[in-house]
C-alpha cells in the first residue's frame, strides 16, 4: 500500500518536472565532492551557493553533447564510488584517477585529463629534488590518493595523510612536513601561490582522470566516450583547460592518442570485469590482516592506553581539586570539565593540532592525539571519581580524621581506595568508548585501525566485509581490558558477603560466614 503510494507520488512529481527538463530527456546526475577544492569542483568564492571548476565546465559540455540537463550531487570524496553503486548518481566526475583497483568495481571512460604528481617544498629547502631525496623525510599527501600509494611504494618515507590539501600545505609551511606530493592541478592552485613554498623536481608518475560509470550501464559509457571524443576533436575541452590554466603536455599527448586510436581506451576500460570466487575473497581478507593487525591495531592500542592513562590520572587531579581544592583552582577545574565535556572532541583535536602551532606549540600527531583524547576523557573521569568519592559515607572521613590523619592521608588510604572500586565500572565503560573514539584521530593524520579500514575499504570498495573484520578486531582487542577491569573490581571487593556469587566465580570459594 505504502509503496504504491510512494510510486504514485514520485510519478506525479516527475510529471510536474517534465516541462522544466528538456523534452524527452532525463537529468544526468554527476557525483563529486565540493570539499575537494579548486580547480576541480568547488564553491565559487564570490558566490558560495554556486559551484564552479573545470569539471563543472566539463559536465556542462557533456550535458550539451548528450542533450541532457546536468545535476551535481555532493558526496564525500572517498564515498564517491560506493555512492555511484548505490545509484545516488549516474557518474563520478571528480579527479578520479584510473587505477586497476577501481576498474574492478566500476567502468571508466576514456581519460579526459592527464597529469603528474608534483612535489612541493619550503622555499628555503634545497635538499629535495626527487622522490629518492624523500628517504627519512615526513611527506604529506591526500588520503586514498594515488600520490599516497606512490609514496608508500617508496621505502623509508614517513607518510602523513590529510583530508584536505590546505592542511597539508599549511603543515609544510609551518615545518611539520618536509614535502607534499599531490596531483599537479592541486599543487598549481594551492602550493604555487604560497610565497613560502615552491615546486621542486620533475614530473612524478602519470595520472589519468576518467569518468566513473556503473558496470551495468554500458550504454551510458559508450555515449560518454563518444561525447568526450567529440569535445576533444572540436577543441572545446582544450579551451576549458586553457581557461583554468591546466593545459599541459601530458594532456596534449593524451588527446593526440585519443585522436589516433580511441578504441584502445574503450577496450582498456572495459577490461577486468571478472568477479572473485569465494576462495579468492577469503584469501583477500587474509591479506588485509597484516595491515589491520600490524599497522592499525597497535596504533589504536597505543593511543587508547596512553590516552586513558592521561585521562584517569589527570581526571583524578581534576576531581580532587574540584572537591577539596581552594576556591579558584576548584572553579577552574569545574570550568575545564564543563568545557571539555560540552564541546566536540573533533574540534578540540583540530584546535590542538592546527591551532596550537600558531601559538608556538607544535605537537606531533601522536602526541596531539593522546593529549586530545586524554584531556577530553579526563573531564568524564573526573566526574566518575567525584560521584564515587561522594558516595563514600561521611563517617569514613570523620573516623579517619578522628584517628589523627590529615585530610590528604585520609583521602589516600581511606576514601580513594573505596571510591576507586566504585569508579571501576564507569571508567571501564569510558575506556571502551575511548578505544573506539580513538578512530577520530585520523583527522589529524594518524593512521590507526579505522583509518586502515577506510583505506582498504575504499581501495577495494568493500565496506561490509572489511567492516565486519575490523569490528571483530576492535571487539577482541577490547575484551582483555573488560576482563582486567572485572578482575580488579573483584580483587578490590571487601564486602565479601554481598559479592559472594562473583567471588565464587573467580576464586572457586565463597566467603566464610560471619560468626555471631
Amino acid at each position, binding site marked *: 500500500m505504502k509503496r504504491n503510494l510512494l510510486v504514485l507520488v514520485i510519478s506525479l512529481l516527475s510529471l510536474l518536472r517534465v516541462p522544466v527538463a528538456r523534452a524527452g530527456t532525463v537529468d544526468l546526475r554527476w557525483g563529486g565532492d565540493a570539499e575537494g577544492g579548486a580547480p576541480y569542483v568547488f564553491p565559487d568564492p564570490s558566490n558560495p551557493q554556486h559551484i564552479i571548476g573545470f569539471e563543472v565546465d566539463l559536465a556542462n559540455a557533456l550535458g550539451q553533447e548528450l542533450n541532457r540537463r546536468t545535476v551535481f550531487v555532493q558526496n564525500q570524496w572517498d564515498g564517491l564510488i560506493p555512492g555511484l553503486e548505490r545509484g545516488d548518481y549516474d557518474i563520478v566526475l571528480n579527479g578520479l584517477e584510473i587505477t586497476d583497483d577501481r576498474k574492478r568495481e566500476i567502468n571508466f571512460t576514456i581519460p579526459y585529463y592527464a597529469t603528474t604528481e608534483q612535489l612541493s617544498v619550503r622555499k628555503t629547502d634545497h635538499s629535495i629534488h626527487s622522490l629518492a631525496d624523500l628517504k627519512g623525510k615526513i611527506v604529506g599527501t591526500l588520503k586514498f590518493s594515488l600520490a599516497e600509494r606512490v609514496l608508500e611504494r617508496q621505502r623509508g618515507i614517513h607518510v602523513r595523510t590529510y583530508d584536505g590539501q590546505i592542511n597539508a600545505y599549511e603543515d609544510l609551511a609551518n615545518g611539520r612536513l618536509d614535502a607534499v606530493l599531490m596531483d599537479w592541478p592541486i599543487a598549481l592552485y594551492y602550493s604555487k601561490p604560497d610565497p613560502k613554498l615552491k615546486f621542486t623536481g620533475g614530473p612524478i608518475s602519470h595520472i589519468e582522470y576518467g569518468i566513473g560509470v556503473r558496470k551495468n550501464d554500458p550504454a551510458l559509457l559508450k555515449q560518454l566516450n563518444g561525447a568526450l571524443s567529440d569535445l576533444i576533436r572540436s577543441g572545446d575541452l582544450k579551451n576549458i583547460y586553457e581557461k583554468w590554466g591546466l593545459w599541459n603536455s601530458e594532456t596534449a599527448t593524451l588527446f593526440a592518442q585519443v585522436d589516433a586510436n580511441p578504441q584502445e581506451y574503450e577496450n582498456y576500460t572495459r577490461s577486468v570485469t571478472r568477479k572473485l570466487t569465494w576462495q579468492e575473497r577469503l584469501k583477500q581478507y587474509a591479506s588485509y590482516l597484516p595491515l589491520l593487525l600490524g599497522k592499525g591495531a597497535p596504533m589504536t592500542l597505543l593511543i587508547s592506553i596512553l590516552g586513558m592513562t592521561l585521562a584517569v590520572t589527570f581526571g583524578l587531579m581534576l576531581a580532587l581539586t574540584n572537591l577539596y581544592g581552594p576556591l579558584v583552582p576548584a572553579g577552574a577545574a569545574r570550568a575545564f570539565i564543563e568545557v571539555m565535556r560540552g564541546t566536540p572532541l573533533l574540534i578540540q583535536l583540530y584546535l590542538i593540532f592546527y591551532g596550537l602551532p600558531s601559538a608556538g606549540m607544535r605537537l606531533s600527531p601522536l602526541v596531539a592525539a593522546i593529549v586530545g583524547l586524554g584531556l577530553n576523557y579526563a573531564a568524564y573521569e573526573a566526574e566518575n571519581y567525584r560521584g564515587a568519592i561522594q558516595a563514600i559515607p561521611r563517617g569514613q572521613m570523620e573516623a579517619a580524621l578522628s584517628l589523627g*590523619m590529615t585530610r590528604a592521608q585520609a583521602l589516600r588510604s581511606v576514601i580513594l581506595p*573505596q571510591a576507586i572500586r566504585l569508579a571501576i565500572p564507569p571508567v571501564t565503560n569510558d575506556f571502551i568508548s575511548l578505544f573506539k573514539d580513538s578512530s577520530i584521530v585520523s583527522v589529524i593524520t594518524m593512521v590507526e585501525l579505522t583509518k586502515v579500514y577506510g583505506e582498504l575499504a575504499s581501495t577495494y570498495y568493500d565496506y561490509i566485509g572489511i567492516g565486519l573484520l575490523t569490528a571483530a578486531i576492535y571487539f577482541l582487542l577490547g575484551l582483555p581490558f573488560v576482563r582486567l577491569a572485572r578482575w580488579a573490581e573483584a580483587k578490590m571487593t*571487601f564486602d565479601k558477603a554481598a559479592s559472594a556469587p562473583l567471588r565464587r566465580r573467580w576464586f572457586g570459594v565463597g566467603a566464610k560466614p560471619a560468626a555471631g
Partner: protein
Amino acid sequence: MNEIIEVGRLNKRFGTVAALRDVTFTVAKSELTVIIGPSGGGKSTLLRCLNGLETFDSGRVRIGNITLEQHNSPQARDLKANLRQLRKEVGMVFQAFNLFPHFTVLENAVKAPMIVKGLSRKKAEEWAYELLAKVGLENRAHYYPSQLSGGQQQRAAIARALAMSPQVMLYDEPTSALDPSLVGEVLQIMRKLDDEGMTQLVVSHEMRFAREAGDKIIFLDDGEIVEYGPPEQLFTSPRNERTRQFLHNYFQ
C-alpha cells in the same frame, strides 16, 4: 593536673538553634563520665566539639595540655596543627562504627599508627594484636568488617581507637545501633577499660550502665548542663525537675 578534660563556656549554634549553651565541666583522669539526656539535646554535638569534628562559636576545650579555642580565629593554621595534636590524644567511637570496610580488622587497627605515628608494620601489628585480644577479637584479625556482627564491629572500632594510645576515649552512643543481645559485650569492654584507668566520656541511653559504671553523670538538655554529679545522687535524688521528668519518662 588531675582534670584531664576541661570544657569552659562552650557555645555552638546551628543557624538560629543554640546547640550548646555555656557548657562547662571537667573530667578527672581515669574517670568514666556518662552524658545522658533527650535526643536533640546536644550530646553528640558536645562530643564532636571535643575532637574538632565540629567547630564551636565561643569557649574553650582543653584535653591534656592541648587547648582549642573558638575556631574562627585568625590563627586558623595553628588551630589545624593543634587539632591534629588533640585528635592523637582523643579516641573516638561512633554509633555507626565507621570501620574502614576495605581493610581487615587488623588493618583497621594498624593503619593510623603507621601513617600518623610512623610505627613500623611489625610494631603496629604487635600492638594491634594485643588490643584485639583485649576486646576479644584476636581470632577475627583477618576478617573484613562486613563479616562481623555489630557487637564485634564496635569492639573492633574500639580497638582501632585504642591503637593510637589516646589519653581519652569518647563514645557517641556506641550501643544504639546494636541488637539488644549484643549491647553487653561492648559495655563490658568499657568497664574493662575503666578498670585499667582509661578516661572515658560516653554518650549513652544505657541507664543501668551509667548508674553502675559511671563515676559522674552529665544530664544535658536543650544544649545546657542541667545536672552534673555522681550517679547515686543524680539517679536517686535528682535536684532538677527536668532531670526528674527525663528519668521518670525513661524508667516508666
